[in-house]
């Protein structure tokens, strides 16, 4: 689809929401909007796409209370703004949108979370992505290092980059709009996504990418949409296995879950973002005892998060229940870099090769 066609469709679908409200009000009906319920209770596994999507639970937001009415008013203002942006062929960041709302009086957003959520609502209703509304996140994606050649269409022309030879120590930074990215060729056997910068640098320094034909992807904590889309495409179009290497605590398991199964917040675009084949490397709770890793005690919040994961449909497997229950019994958590207690080479020479061959990746 051409850019013009895309813009026209986005504009038409956004105005469609306003038109529905117009008709409702003309008929003397209080305007309302219907949306899937965006909570843990309402995500379901989709067998065809192998990712978690929203289920059938819907909530109706009708302007009969002040709070709901203001929500609809805000949505109306955002639609008006996006329509204008599309007409004028401009673009803005999510943060800019939040600041623009300063002048909207009652429709002003209280925090950026609120405007981000509202944009996600619009994505769900229009079945389009925010990029189609000319909105981009201000967060930058993470970086790639490994035997991979890519072509990026930038505002200053098309560039070809090899992610080992043409980049510095920081690697190749993933752009916001992954649609402008093409993979040309590669010499890799698998992709390893890493939570922390320290471990990413360790693998690079130890030459793990060269020794095992690995593409290293630094997630920078909870990964941005662009990072998750790159992982999905590396898996999808290049057929490379993806493994995820994080700290050994409940928050890191959620990072893995959002890579593999999609996040609850963006379950409407799971098909684009999630990599169902992604496997979890560790740090596994069993690693903490097996390797006698230095560990910290779980905090109250950690324990609650682990318990919440036991009821999260994305973790409903024997493997996860065993590991989580083991961790709850040990009451311990370890960081990836705790492997350094057994020497700086231990993680690349021992732990990862053993674990990856166990998993059938190498």
């Amino acid at each position, binding site marked *: 689809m051409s850019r013009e066609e895309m813009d026209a469709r986005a504009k038409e679908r956004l105005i469609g929401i*306003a038109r529905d409200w*117009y008709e409702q009000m003309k008929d003397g009906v*209080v305007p309302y909007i219907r949306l899937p319920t965006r909570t843990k209770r309402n995500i379901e596994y989709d067998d065809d796409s192998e990712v978690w999507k929203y289920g059938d639970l819907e909530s109706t937001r009708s302007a*009969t209370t002040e709070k709901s009415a203001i929500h609809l008013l805000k949505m*109306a203002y955002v639609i008006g703004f996006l329509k204008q942006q599309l007409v004028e062929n401009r673009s803005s960041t999510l943060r800019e949108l939040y600041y623009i709302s300063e002048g909207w009086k009652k429709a002003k957003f209280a925090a950026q979370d609120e405007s981000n959520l509202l944009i996600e609502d619009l994505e769900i209703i229009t079945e389009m992505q925010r990029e189609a509304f000319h909105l981009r996140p201000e967060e930058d994606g993470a970086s790639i290092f490994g035997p991979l050649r890519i072509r990026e269409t930038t505002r200053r022309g098309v560039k070809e980059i090899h992610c080992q030879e043409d980049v510095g120590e920081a690697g190749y930074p993933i752009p916001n709009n992954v649609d402008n990215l093409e993979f040309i060729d590669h010499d890799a056997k698998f992709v390893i996504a890493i939570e922390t910068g320290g471990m990413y640098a360790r693998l690079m320094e130890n030459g793990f990418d060269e020794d095992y034909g690995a593409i290293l992807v630094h997630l920078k904590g909870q990964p941005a949409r662009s990072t998750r889309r790159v992982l999905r495409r590396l898996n999808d179009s290049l057929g490379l296995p993806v493994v995820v290497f994080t700290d050994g605590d409940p928050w890191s398991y959620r990072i893995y879950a959002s890579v593999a199964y999609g996040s609850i917040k963006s379950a409407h675009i799971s098909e684009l973002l999630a990599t169902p084949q992604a496997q979890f490397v560790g740090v596994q709770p069993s690693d903490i005892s097996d390797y006698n890793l230095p560990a910290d005690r779980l905090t109250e919040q950690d324990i609650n998060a682990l318990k919440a994961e036991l009821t999260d449909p994305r973790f409903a497997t024997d493997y996860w229940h065993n590991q989580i229950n083991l961790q709850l019994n040990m009451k311990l958590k370890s960081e990836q870099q705790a492997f350094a207690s057994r020497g700086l080479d231990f993680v690349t020479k021992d732990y990862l090769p053993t674990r990856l061959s166990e998993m059938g990746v190498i």
Partner: protein
Amino acid sequence: MVIAEDLAREQRSISVAEFFEKNKHLLGFDSPTRGIVTTVKEAVDNALDACEEAEVLPDIFVGVRRVENEVYRIIVEDNGPGIVPENVPPVFGKLLYGSRFHQIRQSRGQQGIGISAAVLYAQLTTGTPARITSRTGVNRPAHRFEIMIRTETNEPEVISHEEIEWDRTHGTRIEIQFRSTLTAKKRLLDYLRLTAIVNPHARITADIDGEITVFERASNDVPPCPKPILPHPHGIEFGALKRLAAASTETVEEFLIGSFSRVGKKTAEEMINLAGLKPSRKVNKLDSNELKRLLEAMQAVRVPAPPAQQCLSPIGEDLICRGLEKEIQLDFIKARTRPSAVYGGHSFIVEAAIGYGGKIPPEGNAMILRFANRVPLLYQQGACAITDCVSQVNWKNYGLAQQGLPMGPVLIMVHVASTNVPFTSESKDAIASIPEIEREIILVLQELGREVKRYLARREKKKQQDDRARAICSIIPEIAAKVSEIVELPPVDTTPIEGKIMRKVVAKKRTVDGKVSIEVNNYTGKEVDLVIYNLSSDKAEDAVPLPDFVESIDGEYTRVWRCTLGAGEAWRAIYTGTGEGTLDLRGVDDGMKVVVDLDV
């Protein structure tokens, strides 16, 4: 038996004054800080009791002044009946001297300890005598005494006595000086405020180190003074019965009828039969065993409750509310006075009130105000049966948060009035847990809980209605404007939605491009006669239609329109202006009108 003889030399009687000198805490003088509060409390209690007996509206002055470092002079002056000069020394200079100890009726003071204990405390800490001025009427001179207590004998010692000129025609003034601090100033003011709440007929003026606070009266009716009653047969103990019997020259039957309340001929006969006595026996001739049998019979026979109306003086629901409202701003208040009840032959009445919102602190435990015989209880809240009862009630049933005590902007006031309030100690800080009293307190709190639940439900409903009214009348029009702009169609009219949802009279003010429009829609099914008030600094000389009345004060204009709107009809006025100001509507019930300012 040498030891016994040695000991005997040491053994001697102890005067009650000596005893309390050593046990100050029993009377509420455990610390100098608290001493001020206790002294003021005792003096004010006496003043209020005296005024009540004389049926005058109390006008009480309380002064606390620093004399020198850590020495304070406390002054309490009343307009009561005064004390005859002969009685001034024992009243203030002898512990356990009083007029109310032998009476069965509700009163604040009872044993005649409190004020003389203060005098004792003063002479202990500063060695200065108490100075008392009293006058019993216009035609009599005022007398001024300086008094101390001889602790070894518990007898007053008059240091000086003179007749003086005094501008009060009747009343009493006591000045006591003792070593203390003013850290309890807040408590003291709290005590006076609480006293003012349960004595709404009293005016109390406090001058604490130059800072003057007046607690004005909320009622000009002197409450009826409780009348003493005869003891109730169920409330008497052996010793008292023996004493009464010994002093009587009557027959058993005459004695029972004449010395006890609620005993008639029939009841007396029943008691005498049950005790196996002859009705004609002289009661002072009965031996101990016979008296014991009589006592048992007296308590076994059913006797109606003592005449509570006569001996008790509850504050009453209306005055409790007025008393509380004048001192604490509240959104909601409800009071209940229970019917009188009895424990161990003593009459009592429980009354209580519950308040919500207003100036009550919104966080933390509820405010609990405890009173006994119109006296606030300030200390030992945790040891008091009232507090215990408050936490026994399940307030969550009534829509209040609770962690032991109820939480949030709630005030709970409980007053126990009795001919014999069962305190846990002589300092009168806490009420003992007597099952009959607790039962009454819990019942009254449950009644009030239901009231507060109804109030909260009403408030919640009103809140929802207001919320909906704001959504429908103020935000939906904005959504309509924005949506119409987006779809590039003529502005959609939202009045049908308003009419359908609201079914009320809706008034709106909206300013667009310097034109203020006021629109009123009658969505009810009835014709209404309306008065529309618009206050603003806009001159609005071009108003269409012209107001029926305009008034201007300091550049502020009040415009009034009148109109009659049939069911479904609308009215509108337009003028040039900034739209600043307010809009109001009269002529319909609050529940049937919605006023929306779209310029806010």
